[in-house]
């Protein structure tokens, strides 16, 4: 698993936010476009690309993209 790749796939779930806004340190909940529907897209992306099913609590516990990457990597 590669963090750069993960950040790119994470960014693809957003329609309006510019790709340059996304780094491993991005606090994604603070983005204007963040919503519960995008959270679903992230769970679906992780399921499809990494074959890992994120639970609601795991999704809620992550603040940065790096946090989420670490959770996925360790599952």
């Amino acid at each position, binding site marked *: 698993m590669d963090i750069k790749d993960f950040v790119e796939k994470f960014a693809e779930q957003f329609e309006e936010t510019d790709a340059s806004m996304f780094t491993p340190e991005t606090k994604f909940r603070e983005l204007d476009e963040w919503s519960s529907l995008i959270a679903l897209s992230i769970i679906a992306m992780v*399921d499809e690309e990494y074959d890992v*099913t994120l639970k609601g609590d795991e999704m809620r516990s992550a603040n940065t993209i790096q946090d989420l990457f670490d959770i996925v990597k360790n599952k």
Partner: protein
Amino acid sequence: MAFIELKNIRIAGFSAGVPKKVIKTKSRNPKYTDEEFVKSVGVEEKHIDDKFTTSDLCYFAAEQLITDLGWDKKEIEALIFVSQFRDYILPATAPILQDRLGLSKECYASDIALGCSGWVYGLSSLASLMTNGNIKKGLLLVGDARRLQDSSFNDPLFGYAGCVTAVEFKEGDEGIKFHFGSDGSGYDAIIIPDGGARNQFTLSTLDVHEDEDGIKRNRLNSFMKGLDVFSFAISTVPKSIKALSQKYGIDLSNVDYMVLHQANLKINQLIQKKLKFEDSRVLNSLNKYGNTSSASIPMSIVASTNNETYKAEKSFITCGFGVGLSWGTAYFQLKDCVISQIVEVE
């Protein structure tokens, strides 16, 4: 593993009752327009009218189906009612429906309190009663007309429906194959907290609070942990369908139709993609009827094949999943199956 195979059983017909009144979906998230919201949830409109309970809708659907099948009411000796919105806390609703439909008093009648998985569970219960031929004709009535829920906070997802499935004993029929699962650790993923025996109704039940999703609710309104339900559904459903197909040697690429509980568009599209079913092999009702809980599988069959009979044999894989958490998968064939026209009640 909870596999069940019930032989000598066929599904003779389906019908659906919905309120005539239609409500268009409106966005309840200020970040999305109505159009964007509809596209994302997948529900353009649904039938909702608080004049009717689930059992009312089931009653009208049952009368229609019995007429279309030409069944003699005296021959119907079992009735199972699956709902989480029963007419009363007690008594059960099934005996009320037995009487209202004019069925014989020599009738097995019982309620099952399940939601999204309820049609599959109810079908297995009814088929189990009938598999050895003691009872020849039975009705399964399912649905959740979520009164007290939608009008108060503009619920975007749920519609009202009462669906009926007619089940018949037929010696030598291949019958129905099932797989079931439960995970009560997720009991609070979809919950109406108060009004039952655990948290009895008190005046504070009606106090309005704001949940983490920003929606205001009292403790008789249902609350859903969307993320948890989503991740449960996209992982558990494909596993259950694959387990059943492996157990009984069912080739999914040869199955004529898949019918999933109509949870929401995203969940259903993902499951469909994982199981490699093309759109032409999937029956839906989400767009026009919403998520109709336990009624969603028969609703999708009736809505996709209105006023038709499945004369030629067609194979179906179906899966109900959600509140409980609870899930069930069923595989069966339909042949000479009567599909009543949707009954719109006003």
